[in-house]
């Protein structure tokens, strides 16, 4: 299984070498955002206002971490289910978003947007929130603080372990369920 160490922001060249099933250790800055934050990002775009972070080459992690205990940058921080952000992802990909990180299936529209805009979807291990938090070395709320766990955070990650679930060429890693009929 090919393993790549990549740094954010991600480039077209980074994305083009990735195929479904590859392991990626991600380094640099990523942004957290889930349901409520995405809705607010859309409202900002509709109003023609700037977003709290630059989308060009950006990676969004679908996560709502648990509160940071004293002495730690963040609490548990595993992925949430991605399909709930499907309604928003194509618009963000068109504006430069290079990667989303979550768990579970994406819609055909999101897969098409990844092909059209050279982007990928990474899977992180769901339910391994304590383990994944070890790779997050810093975390700061940069927008929508009132959303609590759903606020947008700028997170610094070191060798954050990911699997390419959907690549930019239509490849997908998830097993297709074997149904008789």
């Amino acid at each position, binding site marked *: 299984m090919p393993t790549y160490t990549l740094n954010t922001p991600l480039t077209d060249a980074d994305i083009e070498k990735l195929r479904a099933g590859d392991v990626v250790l991600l380094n640099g800055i990523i942004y957290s955002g889930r*349901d*409520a934050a995405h809705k607010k990002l859309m409202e900002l775009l509709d109003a023609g206002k700037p977003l709290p972070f630059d989308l060009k080459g950006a990676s969004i992690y679908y*996560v*709502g*971490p*648990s*509160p*940071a*205990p004293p002495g*730690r940058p963040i*609490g*548990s*921080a*595993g992925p*949430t*289910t991605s*399909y709930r952000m499907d309604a928003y992802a194509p618009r963000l990909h068109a504006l430069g978003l290079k990667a989303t990180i979550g*768990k*579970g*299936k994406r819609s055909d529209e999101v897969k098409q947007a990844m092909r059209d805009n050279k982007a990928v979807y990474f*899977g992180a*291990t*769901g*339910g*391994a*929130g*304590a*383990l994944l*938090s*070890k790779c997050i070395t810093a975390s700061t709320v940069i927008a929508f603080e009132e*959303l*609590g*766990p*759903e606020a947008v955070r700028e997170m610094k990650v070191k060798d954050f372990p990911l*699997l390419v679930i959907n690549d930019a060429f239509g490849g997908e*890693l*998830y*097993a297709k*369920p*074997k*149904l008789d009929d």
Partner: protein
Amino acid sequence: MREIKAADISAAVAQMCMSANTKLPDDVRRKFEEGYKNETTEAGKEIFRQLLENADLSFETKLPLCQDCGLAIFYVEMGEDVFVKGGVNQAITEGMVTGYKDGFLRKSSCDPLTRKNTGDNTPAIIHIDMVPGDRLKISYMAKGGGSENMSRVTMLSPSQGWEGIKKFVVNRVAEAGPNPCPPIILGVGIGGTFEYAPKIAKQALLRKLDDTHPDPKVAAMEAELLEAVNKLGIGPMGLGGSYTCLAVKIALAPCHIASLPLAVNVQCHSARHEEVEF
């Protein structure tokens, strides 16, 4: 009448919330170890390895096993001769709020329309059954949103019978695919009514993964469903393999002659629950 102090209940519930979110139950751990040994795909094996490491780290650091510490579900068996000054609901709720605050657990409860977080994980979802005697048993379950979203209730026609039930369950798991964090555990409620079937389906998830249903016929049904679901090959986190589901737990209840209610509660692999008795 036996009085149980509300403060004692609150303290025990707070402790239970913190403990359940940082200590994987032994029966679940044993299944992970079995999966790590026997899973046929390398990707699946690797997931089990990570989950075991995550469980160790969570226990050691008290960071929750999963950032989704769930809505707090309580199944309560309350003796008819038990008295709690101020009420058992209030005592449980206060304990839950303390546990989620002091344990740095995520508060995941919000208004359904404005989506504003209630801030303290209230309300606790409390099901109380009155039983004879003077004992009080409180079971707590941290139920995450990802797996709950994949759960379903349906009203089958009696003619569909067991084959219809089996088909619905298998199709539900197939459709959910990687979304609910497999390997999953299934709580299946058969019979009752539209609201009762899902109640007993979720309650069935409190059973030990390696127990055997006392009724051999039901035990055989559980085994049949488990085999059918695992044939789907979804595997840990949807990466393919033989461990899609760790256990199926069925609860049965008599139903109306016109109905066959069926509820499938999907539980993620982070099956966090504990109980306390007074």
